[in-house]
C-alpha cells in the first residue's frame, strides 16, 4: 500500500495518484510512481502552458522546422537549429553547477538534432548587486558558463544581463545555443523499427539531480529549504567527447533516433522516444552503467546525471556504433529494444518493475487555469508625469545611467567566455547582435536575446511585443534579416491567477509581434514557479532570435567609424517615460505604461535600415533601448575601445519634455551614421517607407555634445563617459 506522503514527496497530488491507478488498473510500483511524477511535472509536461503555447506561429519568411527537442530554419542547404532553455532554480541553489549544466543541457538538445553547436548566448537576471548573495550568484553563474562552454569549444558570443529587485531570491539563467548542419542530416528523437536496439551512450548514471525537474523546477522556493542534492553536476570534457562521438555516429547513417537524457533522465528519453515513434520499448535496467553501487531502480530512472544519451540504431549495427564510442572512451551499451506493443516495459533483476502505456506518460493533462489582472497594474498606471521633475543635471544623469550595472559594459563577463573559438565570430560581444559567419558560404548569422521585463511587469502584452520587436531591431542593426524566434518564458506560480494573467498576456504579445514581423517560433521552454518568499519575478519572456546576413559585406556594428560622418535618427521620439531606466534610477519609480509600439512603423523602420545597409549606405547602426537616445548615442561613441569618436548633436524641437527626449525609451528608433553623400539615398529609402528620418548631428571631436535647438543639454568628454560605462559593473561588484 502506497502512502500519500510517498507520492506527495514526489510532487504528485491525490488526484494525480488516483489517475495513475486508473491508467494502470492497479497500484503503481515505486518506479512507476517516480516515472509519472517526473513526466507529469510542469517542467516536462507543460500542463499549465500547453493551451497557449499551441497558438504560437510556426510559419514565417523562412522555412522553419520544429523537432522534438529543438527547431530551426533552413538557409540554402543548411539547417540552423536553435533553442533557449532555463536553468533558474538550479542556478539559484548552486550557481556554478546550475549554470554549467544549463549550458550543457541546451547544447545536447542541439547536437542530438544532428547539428554542430556553433554559438551560445546567455540571458541572465539577478537581484541588485548591493546584496552580497546576488554578487555570489553573478560570479558563480559566469564561472559556470565559462567552465563548461570554454572547455567544449563552443563560443559564447552574446546575451544580456539585467538586475532588478524581483530577481532577488530567484535568479534567471536562460541558455541559448545555435547549431548548424546539412539540411538533410537532421536527426529525430524517435524510436522506430520493431526489434531495433536501444543503446545507452555517454556518462554513467549516478545519484545526482534526482527529482530535479519535479521537486526543484516545479515548485517555488520557500524559506530555509535545502535543495542542493537535486542539482546536477557537469563534466564538460565528457560532453565534448560526447559531441564528437555523437556527430560521428550520426554520420554513419545507422541512427534511427537519438535523444539526450536531460530533465527526468532515462524516464523521459525512453518514454518520449517511444511515444514520438509510435512504438514501445523493452528495457533491462541492469544494463545501465552505474557510477555507484546499490542504486534503486527508481533512482536509476529518475537520475539527471549529465552527458548521457539514448540512441535507437539499426539492428546489426550495434558494434559499429560501439566502436565510435570506444574511440572516445565513452559507454555504449544496448539496454533494450523497440517493441510493437506501445508500452514502456522495464525489468530489473529479473522482475518487472514498470509496464506503462507510453502515451499515458507523455500526454499529460492540459490545465485551463484561471487568470485575473493583478492589483498592482491599477497603481502603476497612475503615473503623472507632471509630478516628475523635468529639469536636472543631464550630464550627471547620463553618467549615472551608463554606470548602472544593467546598462554598463559587460566586458567583465564576456571576456571570461571564449567567444572566438571556431573562428566564426565576426562581431565581438557588445554590439547590437552577435555575428558568426557560416563557413563555406557568403552568409553569416546574427543572434540576440532580448527582454525588458520592467515593461512586461507594467504591461505584459506590450512588453513582450517589444521584446520581439527589439530583438528584430538588433538583428537588423547588425545587417541581418530577422528569421525566427526561440522563447524562454519565465514566470511565477501559474496557479496564482495574477501570475497566469501575466503569462497569458505575454504569449499573446509574442504572437502579435511574430505574426506582424513574419517570424516563426521554432522552439522554446517554459519556466514557472519563479518565486521567492518576497514574491514573483517580473514576467520575463526572453526572446532569442536568429537572423540571416545574406552577404558578409553587410555586417554592421553600432559604433561610429569616421570623423565628419553624419548622424541620422530614423523613427520618431514621443514623450514617454513609463518603465524607463531613467524613471527608476533617477526618480525611484517603476511606473506608467510600457512605451507604445506601432508594429507597422516598426516594420518600416527595420526595412529602411536593412535596405540602407544592404546598399552599402550605412557605416553604423544602433537601436535606442534602455536609457533612450542619450545612452544610445554615448554607446555609439565609445563602445569600440580602440576608436573613440565624438558627436555633436542638435535635436529639433518636437515639444517634448527634455528628460523624455534624452532618456525616454520610445520604440522603433535607430541611429545610423553615414558619409555626407549618402544622406539623400537614405532619405529616399526612408521616404518610400514613410519613415521619419532626420539628420541630427555629426561625428566629430572627442566629446559628446547634445543640444536642443542650440540649447546645451549634455557636454561630456568621451573618456569620462567611457570610464563610467566601462567600469560600472565591476565597481558595483566590488563595492
Amino acid at each position, binding site marked *: 500500500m502506497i502512502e500519500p506522503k510517498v507520492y506527495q514527496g514526489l510532487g504528485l497530488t491525490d488526484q494525480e495518484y488516483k489517475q495513475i491507478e486508473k491508467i494502470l488498473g492497479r497500484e503503481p510500483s515505486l518506479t512507476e510512481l517516480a516515472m509519472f511524477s517526473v513526466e507529469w511535472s510542469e517542467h516536462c509536461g507543460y500542463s499549465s502552458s500547453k493551451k497557449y503555447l499551441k497558438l504560437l506561429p510556426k510559419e514565417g519568411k523562412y522555412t522553419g522546422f520544429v523537432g522534438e527537442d529543438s527547431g530551426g530554419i533552413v538557409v540554402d542547404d543548411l539547417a540552423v537549429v536553435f533553442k533557449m532553455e532555463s536553468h533558474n532554480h538550479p542556478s539559484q541553489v548552486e550557481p556554478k553547477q546550475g549554470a554549467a549544466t544549463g549550458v550543457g543541457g541546451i547544447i545536447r538538445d542541439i547536437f542530438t538534432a544532428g547539428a554542430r553547436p556553433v554559438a551560445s548566448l546567455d540571458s541572465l537576471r539577478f537581484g541588485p548587486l548591493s546584496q552580497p548573495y546576488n554578487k555570489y550568484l553573478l560570479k558563480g553563474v559566469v564561472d559556470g558558463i565559462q567552465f563548461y562552454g570554454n572547455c567544449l569549444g563552443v563560443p559564447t558570443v552574446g546575451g544580456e544581463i539585467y538586475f532588478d529587485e524581483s530577481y532577488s531570491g530567484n535568479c534567471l539563467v536562460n541558455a541559448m545555443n545555435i547549431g548548424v548542419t546539412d539540411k538533410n542530416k537532421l536527426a529525430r528523437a524517435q524510436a522506430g523499427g520493431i526489434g531495433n536496439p536501444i543503446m545507452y551512450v555517454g556518462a554513467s548514471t549516478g545519484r545526482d539531480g534526482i527529482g530535479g525537474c519535479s521537486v526543484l523546477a516545479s515548485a517555488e522556493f520557500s524559506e530555509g529549504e535545502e535543495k542542493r542534492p537535486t542539482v546536477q553536476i557537469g563534466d564538460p570534457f565528457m560532453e*565534448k567527447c560526447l559531441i564528437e562521438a555523437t556527430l560521428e555516429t550520426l554520420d554513419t547513417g545507422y541512427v534511427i533516433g537519438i535523444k539526450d537524457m536531460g530533465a527526468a533522465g532515462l524516464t523521459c528519453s525512453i518514454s518520449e522516444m517511444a511515444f514520438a515513434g509510435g512504438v514501445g520499448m523493452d528495457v533491462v535496467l541492469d544494463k545501465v552503467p552505474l557510477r555507484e553501487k546499490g542504486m534503486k531502480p527508481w533512482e536509476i530512472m529518475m537520475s539527471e546525471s549529465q552527458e548521457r544519451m539514448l540512441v535507437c540504431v539499426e539492428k546489426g549495427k550495434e558494434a559499429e556504433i560501439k566502436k565510435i564510442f570506444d574511440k572516445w572512451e565513452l559507454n555504449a551499451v544496448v539496454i533494450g529494444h523497440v517493441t510493437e506493443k506501445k508500452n514502456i516495459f522495464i525489468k530489473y533483476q529479473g522482475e518487472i518493475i514498470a509496464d506503462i502505456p507510453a502515451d499515458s506518460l507523455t500526454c499529460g493533462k492540459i490545465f485551463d487555469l484561471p487568470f485575473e489582472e493583478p492589483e498592482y497594474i491599477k497603481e502603476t498606471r497612475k503615473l503623472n508625469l507632471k509630478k516628475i521633475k523635468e529639469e536636472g543635471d543631464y550630464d550627471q544623469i547620463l553618467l549615472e545611467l551608463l554606470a548602472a550595472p544593467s546598462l554598463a559594459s559587460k566586458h567583465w563577463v564576456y571576456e571570461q567566455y571564449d567567444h572566438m*573559438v571556431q573562428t566564426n565570430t565576426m562581431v565581438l560581444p557588445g554590439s547590437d547582435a552577435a555575428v558568426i559567419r557560416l563557413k563555406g558560404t557568403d552568409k553569416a548569422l546574427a543572434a540576440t536575446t532580448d527582454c525588458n521585463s520592467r515593461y512586461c511587469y507594467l504591461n505584459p502584452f506590450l512588453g513582450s511585443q517589444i521584446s520581439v520587436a527589439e530583438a528584430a531591431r538588433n538583428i537588423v542593426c547588425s545587417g541581418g534579416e530577422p528569421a525566427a524566434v526561440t522563447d524562454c518564458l519565465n514566470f511565477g506560480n501559474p496557479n496564482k491567477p495574477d501570475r497566469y494573467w501575466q503569462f497569458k498576456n505575454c504569449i499573446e504579445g509574442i504572437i502579435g509581434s511574430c505574426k506582424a514581423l513574419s517570424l516563426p517560433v521554432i522552439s522554446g521552454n517554459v519556466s514557472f514557479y519563479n518565486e521567492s518568499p518576497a514574491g514573483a519575478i517580473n514576467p520575463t519572456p526572453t526572446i532569442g532570435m536568429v537572423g540571416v546576413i545574406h552577404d558578409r559585406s553587410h555586417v554592421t556594428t553600432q559604433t561610429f567609424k569616421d570623423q565628419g560622418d553624419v548622424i541620422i535618427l530614423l523613427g520618431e521620439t514621443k514623450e514617454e517615460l513609463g518603465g524607463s531606466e531613467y524613471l527608476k534610477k533617477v526618480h525611484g519609480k517603476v511606473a506608467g505604461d510600457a512605451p507604445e509600439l506601432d508594429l507597422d512603423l516598426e516594420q518600416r523602420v527595420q526595412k529602411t535600415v536593412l535596405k540602407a545597409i544592404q546598399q552599402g549606405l550605412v557605416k553604423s547602426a544602433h537601436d535606442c533601448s534602455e536609457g533612450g537616445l542619450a545612452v544610445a548615442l554615448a554607446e555609439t561613441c565609445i563602445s569600440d575601445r580602440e576608436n573613440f569618436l565624438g558627436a555633436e548633436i542638435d535635436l529639433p524641437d518636437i515639444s517634448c519634455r527634455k528628460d523624455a527626449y534624452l532618456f525616454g525609451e520610445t520604440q522603433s528608433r535607430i541611429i545610423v551614421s553615414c558619409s555626407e553623400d549618402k544622406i539623400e539615398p537614405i532619405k529616399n529609402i526612408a521616404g518610400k517607407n514613410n519613415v521619419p528620418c532626420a539628420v541630427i548631428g555629426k561625428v566629430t571631436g572627442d566629446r559628446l555634445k547634445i543640444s536642443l535647438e542650440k540649447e546645451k543639454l549634455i557636454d561630456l568628454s568621451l573618456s569620462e563617459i567611457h570610464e563610467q560605462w566601462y567600469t560600472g559593473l565591476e565597481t558595483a561588484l566590488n563595492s
Partner: protein
Amino acid sequence: MKVGIVVFPGSNCDHDCFYVSKDVFGHDTEYIWHRETKADKFDCIILPGGFSYGDYLRCGAVARFSPVMKSVIDFARKGGTVIGICNGFQILLESGLLPGAMLRNNTVHFICKYVYIRTGNNSTRFTGLCQKDQVLKIPVAHNEGNYYIDDQGYEKLKQNNQIVFRYSDREGNVNEKTNINGSRDNIAGIINKQGNVLGMMPHPERSSEPELCSADGAFIFRSMFQWIERNKK
C-alpha cells in the same frame, strides 16, 4: 607540404587550425589522433588549443603521456617544425620541449580578448616575415597563461634570443600595464634553443583572415609555411 594537427580528446581548436592550414593556406592537412605512434610523414605539426583530457589536472599534464607525444618529441628532436598554441604551448612545456611552466592567470579569471604582442625575434622560422619589433594583434583565450621560469632559465632564454613574443600595447610598449596575465617579463611565446619548436599563448589561427577583426596571425603561419617550402629537401 603535409601538415599534421594533433587531436587529443578535449582539443577544441583542432578544427580551427585545420581550417587555416587547409582552407586559408591550401596545404595538405591531416588530423593525428592521440593514440597514433608515428608522425614522421609530416613537414610540420601543430598542437592546437583546448582542454586535452579535460585538463582537470594541471594543463597539459596528462597529454604529455599520450602515445602521440612520444612521436612528436621524436619529430622535434630531429629538427621537425612544431608549433604549440595555447593548450599546445602548455603541453610543450609539460613534455619538456620548451622550458618553464604555466601558472593560473594572476587575474584569477579566464581571459578571452584581443591583445597586442611585440615580436622580439624576427629571425625565427615562425616570424621571418615580421618586421623587427612588429606589433601583432592576436586574441588570447586561456585560464593558465601566466608563464613562469626561474632566473637561470630566464637568463638562458634571453641569451639565446628565445623570447619571440611579449604582451604589449598597440604602440609596442611592454610593461606591467600591458601584462595581461602575470607572465614573467610579459612573455607570450618562446622557441626552443634549436629554433624549431614555438609555443605561444595567443591564437594566430583565430586571426588569419581579414574578416575576423585581425589577420595578423597569418604572419606566423605564412612565415612558417614559407620557411618549410624553402628548406624542404
